[in-house]
């Protein structure tokens, strides 16, 4: 057990790519936590897919022992949190487990949208904040200007910001000293009943569920019988330890310490982040306030390309869900796509990560349908229906009004692209909340409907600003608007998987774009195919795929019989990759590509 005064718990907040993971690596390396030969780039980003994309999805912790200049050895616990907006809520929860933050800002880039979003969370959690200016080895680094920006935009004192290069190691000792001298020690009562916060949990195929905790009061030991105060579960601790970052067993964890335990817990769902861990018998008096569970906000259908993969897909989803309580799925049948699943995600990145993992780790080809948000459909009888799938839209005669989720989006952008960004936000039904300048960068804050953002807003933003804008958002609630379900009719029959919810004023434009896209995506048939976008019974856009005019083999004699028969077999196999819809065959790729907007 470590003396409270010799413990410092902290997290690192940064915009993506500003060097959070690199700095963590340096801290681990310089303190000899990992032998040089075991060091791999970005120790903390453990999952392959995370490392590949350079993003962290789940919280990780590492315990570092640091002999400080004052002659004492300190235990530093770093919690590394996901940097992406989809996981903002997870970040806010982990922040409750530590007392301070290093605010890392790339000195060649300056403050970005995620810098702001993350630092505000740290401020909300009452953290002491040490600003760190990274990448000062770069010729483009302007530490003084960035210091000023931190003070202007964020409003915290940056006079003692630590200039470093996480890449070369310059300034790392100063960072370690700042952690010890400037961040507060944790508080806690060793003799009080056990009170620990459940920080996160993940599933390990060998160990079962591994639970990350921060002890507040009391002491926990291996073999102790514990109780989770919210879920009510009681368990016996099998294994207790800390991450260095490899797992290392420890006899006990006392106040202020961060570590993990395993206790024969079957699935992540049995644990709840923010729950209070106490002893089964000798309980603490009051539980921690806890957190709302994070809930999916974006939904889409995932269907196996090959109907025979359905069961494999179910198995794979179950495995992923074991480790990710915020990913939900339930079976869905679509007239167009057959059997599949309606899945819920924290955001688009989360959606992409899960879909990628299903395709890559489990080798299942998938058809993804249009992402949708949750609409609140208020019925005439006063009840409210949560609509996850436009295909389930109730009969309009019973509907009173519809509400949609809205977000507050913060965008930082160099001056020269501001006009384009404002236009994009305006086109997406945004309402400007704020526009301020920090040097040559503008910070715009918009109130936007989430449904305008889920599909390709981020891609469009990147393309109109050549990648120079940064973006972050938070949900701000529901608001009524004139929303309608737009159906796509192919050859006069509605295709459920292509239905979308859209604002009435944007319906013509979206409808035209989708019809034009589908015209190119669906091959010609023996008859002409009308493609229509319709609201209720009213057609608002229309295209026609001309009939196939010529498809015949010019020469076919005795020597061609075998070859032509095999070609026909191949074409028949190709037909199976199409989805038969009424008389029309629609290629799988059409379902997602039809939604891409070019403008």
């Amino acid at each position: 057990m470590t003396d409270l005064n010799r413990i410092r718990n902290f997290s690192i907040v940064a915009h993506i790519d500003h060097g959070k993971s690199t700095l963590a690596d340096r801290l681990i390396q310089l303190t000899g936590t990992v032998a040089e030969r075991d060091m791999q780039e970005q120790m903390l980003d453990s999952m392959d897919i995370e490392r590949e994309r350079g993003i962290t999805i789940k919280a990780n912790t590492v315990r570092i022992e640091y002999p400080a200049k004052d002659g004492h050895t300190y235990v530093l616990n770093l919690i590394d949190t996901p940097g992406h907006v989809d996981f903002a809520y997870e970040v806010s929860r982990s922040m409750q487990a530590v007392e301070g933050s290093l605010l890392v800002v790339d000195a060649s880039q300056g403050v970005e949208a995620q810098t702001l979003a993350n630092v505000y969370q740290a401020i909300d959690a009452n953290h002491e904040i040490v600003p760190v200016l990274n990448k000062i080895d770069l010729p483009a680094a302007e530490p003084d200007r960035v210091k000023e920006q931190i003070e202007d935009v964020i409003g915290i004192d940056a006079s003692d910001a630590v200039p470093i290069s996480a890449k070369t190691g310059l300034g790392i000792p100063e960072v370690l000293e700042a952690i010890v001298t400037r961040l507060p020690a944790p508080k806690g009562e060793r003799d009080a009943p056990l009170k620990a916060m459940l920080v996160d949990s993940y599933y390990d195929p060998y160990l079962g569920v591994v639970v990350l905790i921060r002890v507040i009061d009391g002491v926990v030991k291996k073999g102790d019988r514990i109780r989770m105060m919210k879920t009510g579960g009681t368990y016996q601790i099998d294994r207790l330890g800390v991450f260095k970052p490899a797992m290392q067993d420890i006899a006990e964890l006392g106040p202020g310490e961060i570590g993990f335990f395993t206790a024969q817990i079957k699935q992540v769902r049995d644990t709840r982040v923010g729950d209070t861990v106490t002893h089964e018998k000798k309980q603490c008096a009051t539980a921690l306030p806890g957190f709302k569970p994070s809930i999916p906000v974006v939904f889409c259908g995932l269907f196996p390309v090959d109907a025979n993969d359905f069961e494999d897909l179910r198995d794979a989803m179950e495995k992923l869900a074991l480790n990710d309580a915020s990913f939900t799925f339930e079976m869905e049948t679509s007239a167009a796509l057959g059997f599949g699943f309606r899945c819920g995600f924290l955001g688009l990145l989360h959606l992409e990560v899960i879909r990628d993992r299903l395709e890559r780790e489990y080798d299942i080809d998938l058809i993804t349908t249009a992402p949708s948000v949750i609409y609140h459909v208020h019925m005439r009888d006063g009840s409210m229906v949560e609509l996850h799938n436009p295909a389930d839209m109730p009969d309009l005669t019973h509907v009173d009004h519809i509400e949609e989720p809205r977000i507050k989006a913060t965008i930082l952008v160099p001056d020269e692209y501001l006009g384009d960004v404002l236009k994009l936000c305006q086109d997406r039904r945004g309402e400007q909340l704020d526009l301020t300048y920090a040097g040559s960068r503008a910070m715009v804050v918009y109130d936007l409907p989430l449904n305008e953002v889920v599909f390709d807003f981020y891609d469009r933003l990147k393309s109109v600003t050549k990648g120079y804008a940064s973006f972050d958002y938070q949900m701000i609630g529901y608001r009524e608007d004139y929303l309608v379900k737009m159906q796509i009719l192919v050859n006069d029959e509605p295709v459920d998987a292509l239905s979308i919810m859209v604002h009435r004023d944007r319906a013509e434009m979206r409808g035209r774009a989708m019809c034009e896209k589908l015209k190119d995506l669906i091959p010609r048939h023996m008859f002409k195919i009308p493609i229509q976008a319709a609201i209720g019974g009213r057609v608002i856009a229309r295209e026609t795929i001309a009939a196939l005019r010529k498809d015949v083999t010019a020469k076919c004699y005795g020597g061609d019989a075998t070859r032509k028969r095999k070609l026909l077999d191949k074409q028949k196999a190709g037909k199976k990759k199409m989805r038969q819809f009424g008389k029309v065959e629609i290629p799988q790729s059409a379902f997602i590509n039809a939604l891409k907007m070019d403008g």
Partner: protein
Amino acid sequence: MAEPWEAGGFGLYIHWPFCQAKCPYCDFNSHVASEIDQARWKAAYLSEIERVSAELPGRRLTSIYFGGGTPSLMAPNTVAAMLDAIRGKWALANDLEVTLEANPTSVEAERFRAFRDAGVNRVSMGLQALNDTDLKRLGRLHSAAEGRNAYEIARDVFPRVSFDLIYARQYQDLEDWRAELAEALTLAADHLSLYQLTIEEGTAFGDRYAIGRLGGLVEDDTAAAMYDLTQEMCEAAGLPAYEVSNHAGDMAQSRHNLIYWRGGDYAGIGPGAHGRITLNGQRQATETDLSPLGWLRRVETQGSGETLRETVSGREQAEEYAMMALRLSEGMDRARFVAMNGADFDPDVLNRLESLGMIEVTEQKITTTLDGRRVLNAVLRDLLAEAR
């Protein structure tokens, strides 16, 4: 009862794999060789005729077809020796058709009389185009004038003459083709083969197409208009289409090719020749060695050029029959299809295709309409799709 193949007749296909030059569009088994030992080749063909006839005794031969490659480059005495041998092996139909494919250069024209004397009674000549620019583009060695000259000689020499044109060529438009076809119809006797240019994989055109370097290709909609125009003009000139790309006057159809399209039996001799023969009630598909020298050595050392023989299942026979017979304006016999397939077509699919105007259906027959034939591959995909 007669075997099903008898409805289609029995023919012999003989493949000659050499040409003077390889045309850039051509994916036939044709090769350019500096030296050809005609005597050695003659012996090999005679040996194969011996082998095949021993296996298929007692049949009456409806047709013999020398295809290529360029069989008009064969030594006439080789052709004569083969035809002599064949006459000794099988009973011949009274109206036995003996066709030889010919290229229209002076080299070949000189041999026409000798071919006729050997027993060839029909020539199919590859004129391909009637203007020099397009002939060059098609990589042909002859000029338009040479082509016509050879054609006139052939008409004098042979009782039946047909010629081939390739249309929907690079840079051709509807009016170009209207004029050229009108001219062709003035030249035509009673048979014409009119093929739309197909870009085949593994040819020079195919390679250029793959890298986007084949300009002026005709769009599908224009090609369709050209096809319709072709049907109209040929019909008006008394040469209606009897197959997708073949037109003939009364009784002037190619009997040999009708064997293929009607699902008859044919034996294949020569490099890469395919056969379909019914033996003991089973239909066999045969193939021979594709490489000219490989085939030659195989015949010489193993006594057979055959490299493949496999039974064609009922379903496969049915598919082949439908693929072939629906090319014909006379259509296909439903009872024959059912006998091979064990089951009839899906009535819903027939109804749908009929209501789209692609086919006409009676108790006995299914016939493609002009619209149906123009998109026959799509019609076949639907007709032969496995039940979902």
